[in-house]
């Protein structure tokens, strides 16, 4: 084997990832070739240097917040819904991503800036009811303060959304899920009934909402939050419209 060929194998050799003929050929070669032996030592030094670096120490505050965010696995019906509607999500996500590239409010550090923003929904179906999915008592999940304007075939909701959780365009979604007439969330929600609205702070967004003409006229609940928080929800109508806590 040529020196050139041997050298191309040296990294794998020092990692113990060579076997059989290649391993024997390298071992034999470097026993007699000083240049290749030196190259082996040099690569080994790089490997050792990397391994000898001091581990960076994360900020204790960050570690505490990491634990307090405590995402929970999504129930299967929601994963299914997510998969079914991913085609609808895709273009909006693209837009949100580009938004994320230009806004300074992003990520863990964005969360610290406590930005709030108004979300405007328009063109909605019958009564729109804000039904936050937030499970009380879990960090990062707070009820929305909302105002409902109009009703019937058109309406508008303005909601103040506190940036309590990590804001990242990739994991902030607002989705519309149908409620049955008694105000309970239909599980599983049928994607045909609900068209999805995605909004992301900090910019108010006007989104269109459609319902299937054949569907039983649903109550509609826009849910706002990172996907991981869209699991437990409050759907008790007695608390509406402001879900005061």
């Amino acid at each position, binding site marked *: 084997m040529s020196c050139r060929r041997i050298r*191309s194998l*040296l*990294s*794998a050799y020092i*990692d113990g*990832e060579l076997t059989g003929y290649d391993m024997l050929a390298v071992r034999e070669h470097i026993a007699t070739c000083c240049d290749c032996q*030196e*190259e082996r030592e*040099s*690569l080994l*030094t*790089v*490997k050792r*240097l*990397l*391994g*000898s*670096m*001091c*581990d*960076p120490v*994360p*900020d204790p505050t*960050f*570690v505490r917040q*990491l*634990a307090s*965010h*405590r*995402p*929970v*696995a*999504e129930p*299967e019906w929601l*994963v299914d819904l997510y998969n079914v509607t991913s085609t609808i999500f895709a273009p909006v996500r693209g837009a949100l*991503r580009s938004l*994320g*590239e230009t806004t300074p409010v*992003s*990520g*863990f*550090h964005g969360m610290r800036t406590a930005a709030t923003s108004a979300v405007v929904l328009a063109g909605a179906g019958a009564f729109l009811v804000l039904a936050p999915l937030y499970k009380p008592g879990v960090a990062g999940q707070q009820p929305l303060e909302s105002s409902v304007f109009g009703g019937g075939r058109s309406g508008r909701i303005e909601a103040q959304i506190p940036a309590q959780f*990590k804001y*990242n365009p*990739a*994991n902030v979604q607002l989705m519309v899920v149908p409620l049955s007439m008694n105000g309970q969330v239909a599980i599983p929600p049928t994607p045909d009934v609900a068209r999805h609205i995605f909004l992301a702070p900090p910019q108010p967004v006007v989104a269109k909402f459609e319902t299937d003409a054949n569907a039983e006229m649903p109550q509609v609940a826009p849910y706002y939050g*990172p*996907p*991981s928080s869209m699991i437990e929800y409050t759907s008790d109508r007695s608390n509406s419209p402001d879900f005061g806590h």
Partner: protein
Amino acid sequence: MPEGVGTLTRGAIDAHNVRTGEKTATFDELVNKYHKQAYNIAYRMTGNHADAEDLTQEAFVRAFRFFGNYRRDWPFDNWLYKIMSNLFVDDLRRRPKVRSQSLDQPLETGNKSDEVYLDIADASANPERVVMSRELDDHIQRALNFLPNDFRLTVVLADIEGLSYEEISEAMHCSLGTVRSRLHRGRKLLRSKIVAFENDQISLRSK
């Protein structure tokens, strides 16, 4: 050497507990157990604490969000590596803080820089090395920043996290040959950069 390599079974059991046990309590345990590894990788990939925090948090959010897709025979940490690998592809591509290079392009290693050898003594044999270590760490991190994302992650997983080629190929969805090639070229590129930084330092001091 991190604990990840030796804890295959334990990692899988941890994940199983999240599924079946008390989710909240176990999540805290998983965060406590794996955040250092995740943070280490994230820091080496991004080169700064702020981005490392974002990536670490995002990795854990994704891990639990997609827990339904998790293969139970995989150790949790390897699965986390896989998520982080995907994250880097998604995220770092969007905000190229460091020079990014396509795999299809030839690497620019400078004139015959591959022939430059690093001459650094073993730390244990040289007390000066300890004093220098912080400075050297900075040089290594700067050199890492120069690597294309795919190369950097391969080097980090292999030489800092101690994963095998097979584990890396699974985490990064690539062949063993690709791992081998990226690692070899990555180390050579790192070597040339570290040497260049060291030389700069020396010439600065001599002025």
